[in-house]
């Protein structure tokens, strides 16, 4: 699997981490994301699972998880980073219709802007939720203060 990925993605891959035989993490640049997802989802036929958004000390990290069910249940996660100041990344709703909800959720809870998303409005939180108040960020306490 690693060799197949290396061959298809070639120079897009910046770093590979093999956690064990079934969990592979590939670091790529956010501008190459659409291309990489197109290869993994359309050409290689992986199943889209979900997107995890994480806030780190000096950037935001997004992990796109895909599963190769019939090739041994291997999960390949694409790792990209965006800046802390004005985090934004291209929306992939054109490629994967089912990604619309999770992008809305990450926008709402972490504040990452998905450029080109057709419907970026509040999903889980109230319509009149405060601006710039992103509950999942580290600066916010568990009880929301």
């Amino acid at each position: 699997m690693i060799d197949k990925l290396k061959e298809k993605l070639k120079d897009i891959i910046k770093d590979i981490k093999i956690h064990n035989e079934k969990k592979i993490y590939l670091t790529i640049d956010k501008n190459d994301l659409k291309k990489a997802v197109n290869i993994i989802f359309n050409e290689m036929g992986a199943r889209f699972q979900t997107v995890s958004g994480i806030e780190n000390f000096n950037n935001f990290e997004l992990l796109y998880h895909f599963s190769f069910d019939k090739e041994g249940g291997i999960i390949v996660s694409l790792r990209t980073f965006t800046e802390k100041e004005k985090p934004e990344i291209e929306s992939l709703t054109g490629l994967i219709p089912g990604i619309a909800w999770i992008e809305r959720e990450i926008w709402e809870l972490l504040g990452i802007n998905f450029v080109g998303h057709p419907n970026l409005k509040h999903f889980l939180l109230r319509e009149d939720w405060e601006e710039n108040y992103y509950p999942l960020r580290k600066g916010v306490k568990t009880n929301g203060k």
Partner: protein
Amino acid sequence: MNLKLKALKKSLWVYHVSAGSCNNCDIEILDLLTPRFDVERFGIILAASPRHADVLLCTGIVNKKCVERVKEVYEQTPKPCVVVAVGSCACSGGIFRDGYQMAGPLDKIIPVHVYIPGCPPKPEAIIAGIVKFLKELK
């Protein structure tokens, strides 16, 4: 007020409100209708609208999106009515007490008369709670 409450004791119409619960308490409430517990033989019937209800069975932490709804349902229910908080979440917030979506627990939003703790409370416990309250009315 007492006369009206006595009239309540004949046949209780129960309305169920779920305000941000994990549904376990809701399913245990539904279980009460099934042949094993079958509360209909005691005259307890599930109402289709709060306007016909005598008892409000509330489950769930009240999360911020549900607050107005819960208040509205309470306003619509004709008084006197009995509000029962079913489950640890409605009684005190349970394990979600510290979350950012918490606007409850229930007794901060509407007055509560009966607390039935448990996660979820067994159907027997729910029946016992309601019967205990009815005895108190005497």
